[in-house]
């Protein structure tokens, strides 16, 4: 199966600066960053720890409001919106996969996915997959009723992937999705994400410090001290 064609811009940052803290303790996490993500595009964000990868993902998904600059998501201007409005915009088109999976601790694998399905209910159609089917898709049909504490790291991450798929995202933001996993498991999880991207066509942004992971993307954006220092194809 070939990769979906990249068409219009799905998400973009224009002159985005993020400063954490105030006064002498202020830290500039992103400094005048411009970035556009096209529909169906796969982008890797690379850089050392503290270079601003995670902050950029959070800005793209509307989790944090930049100190200055504009963020556009699905044609909607996020800058200036309050947290609730940003949340609604995020809910319509973005899904996250975090480094530590961040499964809801009181819910089983099935319920984690089911909760995401419930949140994206307005965008579901009759052809949408159910929670059990989504978990089957990531190879966890036998672990529906397991709590997060009863799952391995790789299994948790696969549940997180299923949960993200339940949101029918146009843009999937992955923050070091293999960071907590051993290399074999990490590779399998990454294969799964890439395969689903090919099947479902969402745009994918991967924050990683692993060059091998970054190389799986068609475009690699390198950050250093909050600035974009390179943006192009894999090395």
């Amino acid at each position, binding site marked *: 199966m070939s990769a979906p064609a990249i068409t219009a811009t799905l998400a973009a940052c224009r002159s985005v600066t993020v400063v954490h803290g105030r006064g002498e303790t202020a830290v500039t996490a992103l400094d005048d960053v411009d970035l556009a993500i096209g529909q169906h595009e796969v982008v890797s964000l690379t850089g050392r720890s503290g270079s601003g990868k995670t902050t950029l993902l959070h800005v793209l998904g509307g989790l944090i409001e930049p100190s200055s600059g504009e963020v556009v998501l699905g044609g909607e201007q996020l800058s200036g919106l309050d947290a*609730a409005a940003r949340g609604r915009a995020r809910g319509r088109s973005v899904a996250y996969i975090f480094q530590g999976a961040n499964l809801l601790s*009181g819910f089983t694998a099935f319920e984690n996915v089911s909760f995401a399905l419930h949140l994206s209910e307005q965008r579901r159609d009759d052809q949408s997959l159910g929670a059990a089917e989504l978990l089957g898709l990531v190879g966890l049909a036998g672990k529906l009723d397991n709590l997060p504490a009863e799952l391995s790291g790789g299994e948790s991450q696969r549940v997180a992937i299923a949960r993200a798929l339940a949101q029918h995202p146009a843009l999937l933001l992955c923050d070091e999705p293999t960071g907590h996993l051993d290399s074999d498991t990490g590779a399998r999880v990454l294969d799964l994400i890439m395969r689903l991207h090919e099947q479902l066509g969402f745009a994918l942004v991967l924050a990683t410090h692993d060059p091998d992971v970054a190389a799986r993307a068609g475009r690699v954006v390198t950050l250093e001290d909050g600035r974009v220092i390179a943006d192009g194809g894999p090395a």
Partner: protein
Amino acid sequence: MRAASTIALRGLGRAPRQTLTRVLVLAAAVGLLGAMLLFVGHSLRTMTGSAIRDVPLDWQGPVASYGQAQSVAAGVARQPGIIQSSPAATASFAGASHRGPAGISSAGSGSLLAVPSGYERHITTFRLLQGRLQPGGVVLDQQLAATLQAQIGDAIAITPRPAAAPQSFRVSGVALITAPDVLFQPLNPQLGPAPAQPPANAAIMPLATFASTIARQLPAIAAASAGSAGAVPGAQNGVQWQVQVQADPSGLGSTPSQAYTRATRMVNRVERSLPGQITFVDNLSERLNGAAGDALYAEALFIMLAIPGALVGLGLAYLAALGTVERDRRELALLRARGATRRQLLGVAAIESLAIGLIAGLIGTGAALASVTLLIKGGVGLTPARAVVAGTVCVALAIAGALVARLATGARVWRESISAGRRSAHREGKPLWQRLYLDVFALGLSGLIFWLTASTGFAAVVNPDSNQTLSLSVYMFFAPALLWIGAALLLVRLRGRALAWAARRAAGGRAQTPRGFLLVSAGRRGGAINRGLLLVGLLLAFGVDLGIFTATYDQQSAVDSQLTIGGDVTATVPPGVTAAHNLTAKVASTPGVQAATAVDHSYAYVGPDLQDTFGIDTSSFTRATTLRDSYFIGGSAAQTMARLRARPDGILVSKETIADYSLNLGDLLRLRVLDHRSGSFWVVPFHVVGVVQEFPSAPRDSFMVANLRYLEAADHAGGPNVVFAKAGDPPAVARRVAAVTRGDGTSVKDVGEQTQQTVSSITTVDLRGISRILEAFTIVLAAAAMGLFVTLGVAERRLDFATMTALGARLREVGALVWSEAGLVLVAGVGLAAGLGVLLSEMLVAMLQHVFDPPPDHLAVPWGYLGALVGAACLGAALATAIAARGLARMPLGSILREE
């Protein structure tokens, strides 16, 4: 040390809100304990003072002669700690008479008290109403003055013994002998105090006059032989020379047991210093010994009522400390990773606890002082020294509480390895008490103790003589104490499994709907919900138990006191005064009196039994006092009164008399009634119209109630001798009534005073003050408990809530998880409180049922207070939920998700 201090204080400063919460919750808990300490200390001092004041005459030492009485009294007076020592005598007389304008009035046998001048300075065995003691004269007790129809200046004749010539004395005053049972008791130091049946007639004489007149015609009772015939109550025949002594109360100490020990030592010392000359009957130590027992009971009751609240308060402090436990745990683990030893970590925890405890202790002291000053009428006798002691205790308790909470929450870190400490998932084994089933054991033992105490009449013994005493075993308080402990441990053991099971059942399998998500979430957080339930439920249970018990206690104290004296305010007058001075109208028109009624308290024989007989005016009686349906058998109070009103010669007879004489309603009952005009008994016919088991002012189980006019016509007593009044503010009204009727020789009592003085000593424990303190703290703690539960729940699930928000969940969807848990805890807590609280108060009231006469028909439920309690919990939950919602809306998603 400096490094540890810096780390500890910086740690507190980094989480200012949590630190403030820990300080305030701990302050509330120690404030409650501090207030308790101040109150109990004050109560014990009050009990001691009250016990000492209740003793009209501390020591009575029998001696053989007038001369010996004088010399020994002088010797005793020189001893330290003695404020008065007087020679005195008591003696019997065969009769008295007075020739007045209407003829000769006679009285039967009676007793004489002979005292020297200045006797009344510190000894209060009588109160002069008119006139004074004069050489050659006699002061009559008001009852004898009324019987003889004698006034000051009249000459009366006293016959010392049968067949002796009467001796004439001029009446120089009228007095009220306030403690005749103690004053005229037979004196036997080996047997101790034995209050006797008060004499029907009594008079007081100057000691020298007595010695030169009456004493010459009576044999002296030898000090050594006092244990024989003289020891029989009321059987004193002759002169009992004695030394009467009053000890200085200021040197007796503050608690009843301390005062008892010192009083006993003092009497021993005086006896040793006058070897062979005197041995005392020690009324003071006897009373203080009883008071010490009461104090033990009071302490047990206070502890029983207050300690659970304070413990739950400390539990809240633990909950507050849990708010920062995850952060603290990681920080401590990090410190260990950097080489800190366990000892150094403990040092950090200790300094942190010291800082928190010091501030919380000072705030708690302020709260305790403010609460006792504001909530207890009359204060608690605060002095700078007592405030400092209370403050020191509060600070020490706060530091200890903070340290325990800190060590308990950080216990894992002290034990586990560094790597384990930096992880977030832990597994622990069952604690020892769970393996030993201590919770089940405590509950079982509680039931067993309660059953044993219930089956043995709750270990309460009431002596039915004129000086009632009541003893209770403090061991029976183990039953509710163990119920508390067992219930708390059982809740800990269950860890919310029942709630979790119910929630999962209600969810009905895998959750796919908002309701399902809420239910499965609650079901999987059984442990956390149980922690909230444990504290909120037990705190509310404590509040319910406290409220119901104190309301019932107050209700029964009021009933008991009113039943004892007859009305809210009672004026006792000499015979004839009510009619002659129109006393009923005078009392009725006193401001604050809602209604008044006159009662003729007389005596009549049923067969050989002399019984109290009350003549009442049925038209005004029910308005001026309270009649409960439970006082009567075979009809309500209104029906029984109507039957009595309908039949002028009707009479209500006590249950015992009905049974003893096989009487039925409508039966003719011939009573021998004392005719005050002739001084002899004559037969008067009555008809039984009802059965009565309790009646206002009826002191014994056997008594009768008749119509006032019919009884007056039969006993010719000159009219009613008691007036009952209903009043909104009994103490104030009693003062006004006493002022208005001062010239009529009335003795006025009110229910408030009676509650303090009631002879059934256990009801004198004033729960009002302590319950006000506890109720105020409970309301504050209930709000704090719900607030803490919500705050802690949000803190624990911060990452989950941030993740949900990142997934696109709206605030109301996230907030629903918060308030649904709060609602669940509140509903379950109220249910637990209702069950456990009512069970505990039932248990306490059942244990104390013998204290009250009559026992409570039902528990009194203070709906206002209970409503405020639940309202406070709801308010606390609502406020915390609102604050949490605001916090969730402003949640720094980026940093929370990054922390993970």
